[in-house]
């Protein structure tokens, strides 16, 4: 019995135009039912990759398969398998919402007798029933985004591709869109790009970070933290000698090291950063040991790099790799891992 092919399979994808290589050898796979976030700075090649996935643009080289069907040779088949919401969600200004969905449903080959009930369903899911007879040009940004999402899921395609679906929305609308995308989990494969990193972290099972046309990191947010930072960090506010602190901390984990130390405040407390290669949480054991060893501790917190930190570190790392001259030996920079920004908690 043959295995079910993954929903999206991209291999060594390259897209070059006008002397610019927008996408440079990207490879990744998305399993069926997975929600994947696509991150990258402006001009990283996110939208170009998404357009190639939809068959709208052709790749210079490499291959893309959607549900096992090659995009390059069977673009028409691909278009039946995807729901696409482009960047800025372009919509016709002078059509009514239900009229637009009916037209798109007909183009997407939804049978006429099923189309009416399906439109009612997506209007309900996207909370658009109140505006179904309104002209799209008169709708607010939030409603327009939801019309775009309703259109993408209308024909119940196995793969949904959305380019920045939450851009320009207020927090309440973002919450609605996030719930909407989360409701698709398991039923449809969703690939979304966004600049709102907490959104991606909450909604997506996996994250792909792309920069300068290359995938610079991929995995779950937790995997990425481990991969990019490679260590755990603890911030403490302690009083007393650094040597005593280190001696006490070594009893818990010998690899713990002081990497940062501030000047003492009026009460003699200073902020100390301890790092270790151990991934599991040592917070409680560390606190107990320090107190048992009579180290004065006022605060202890495990630094938890956000996806934003991961994103910045991963993209910075890729820029460094391009800007720096090639060195024969692996530099200490990568081994040490990037610094966690001071603001992280």
């Amino acid at each position, binding site marked *: 019995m043959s295995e079910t092919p993954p929903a999206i399979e991209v291999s060594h994808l390259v897209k070059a135009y006008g002397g610019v290589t927008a996408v440079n050898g990207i490879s990744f796979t998305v399993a069926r039912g997975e929600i994947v976030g696509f991150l990258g700075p402006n001009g990283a090649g996110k939208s170009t990759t998404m*357009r190639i996935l939809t068959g709208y*643009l052709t790749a210079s080289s490499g291959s893309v398969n959607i549900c096992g069907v090659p995009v390059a040779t069977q673009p028409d088949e691909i*278009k039946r398998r995807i729901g696409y919401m482009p960047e800025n969600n*372009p*919509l016709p200004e002078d059509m009514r919402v239900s009229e637009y969905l009916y037209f798109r449903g007909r183009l*997407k080959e939804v049978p006429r007798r099923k189309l009416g009930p399906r439109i009612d369903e997506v209007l309900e899911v996207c909370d658009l029933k109140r505006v179904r007879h309104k002209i799209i040009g008169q709708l607010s940004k939030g409603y327009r985004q939801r019309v775009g999402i309703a259109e993408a899921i209308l024909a119940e395609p196995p793969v949904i591709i959305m380019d920045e679906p939450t851009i320009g929305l207020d927090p309440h609308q973002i919450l609605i869109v996030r719930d909407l995308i989360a409701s698709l989990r398991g039923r449809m494969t969703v690939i979304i790009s966004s600049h709102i990193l907490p959104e991606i972290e909450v909604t997506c099972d996996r994250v792909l970070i792309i920069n300068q046309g290359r995938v610079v990191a991929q995995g779950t947010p937790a995997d990425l933290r481990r991969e990019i930072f490679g260590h755990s960090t603890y911030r403490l506010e302690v009083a007393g000698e650094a040597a005593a602190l280190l001696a006490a901390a070594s009893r818990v984990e010998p690899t713990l090291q002081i990497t940062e130390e501030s000047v003492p405040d009026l009460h003699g407390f200073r902020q100390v950063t301890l790092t270790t290669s151990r991934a599991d949480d040592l917070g409680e054991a560390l606190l107990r040991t320090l107190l048992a060893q009579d180290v004065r501790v006022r605060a202890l917190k495990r630094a938890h790099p956000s996806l934003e930190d991961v994103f910045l570190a991963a993209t910075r790392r890729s820029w460094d790799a391009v800007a720096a001259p090639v060195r024969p030996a692996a530099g200490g920079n990568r081994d040490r891992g990037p610094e966690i920004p001071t603001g992280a908690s």
Partner: protein
Amino acid sequence: MKHFLTLLSHETRMLLVSPATYIAATLFLAFMGLIFTKILELYSGTPQELSPASVYFQLFWLPACVMVPLLTMKCLAEERRLGTIETLLTTPVTTTEVVLAKFGAAYFLYAALWGSTVGFFYILRKFSGDARYLDSGPLLGGFLFIAVSGLFFVAIGVFASSVTSNQSVAGILGCVMLATLILGGNALSDSTWLQQGVLKPVQSVIEYAHVFGHRDDFARGVVDTRHLLFYFSGTALALIFSIFSVEAKQLHA
């Protein structure tokens, strides 16, 4: 061509709700009504050799150069400006279907507007009570010329709209291309310098593409297959270039 009818009905509906369509229609009917009134005034004053229908179609070029760009300038340029061409072409439709549907809707409207001017002749016939005013030969020939040449003119308008994302540029470009085709051939057809040996082939091409000459033949009841071939092949060529233009923009997006 599975989605052609869906696209055609959508495009026609969109044209019918567009204010530009009604501006074009009003201008056209007002202008043609004025011409018709002037013709009647002329005929009531002095006897004329030609029938009113023949004279009526002599000024076909003015609405063709103005109305066709007004009807077609929006079709592809607006889709590209708004970015809706991307959502349209990521559904299972082909570029050919999209271009043909837009062409079909614009042509339908162009033909419908010209068709509505049959009413002028009907009113004349009804109120004059004289069947001679309704000279069916030139009338049918004239409308046949409008129908056949309209295919080519509208296709040129669609092509102009396919090369830019700016409606105004598309409109001006369409107007210039139509004026060059219709009036350029007429202006050059009488040039003596074209009759010199080397330029003879050029003159024969201009003669072949002489739209005013075609109109006169149609009005006389002469339906030459060469004329038909000229308009049909021109239409096909303009539409093929429109399809290429949309696809080329995609390739270089």
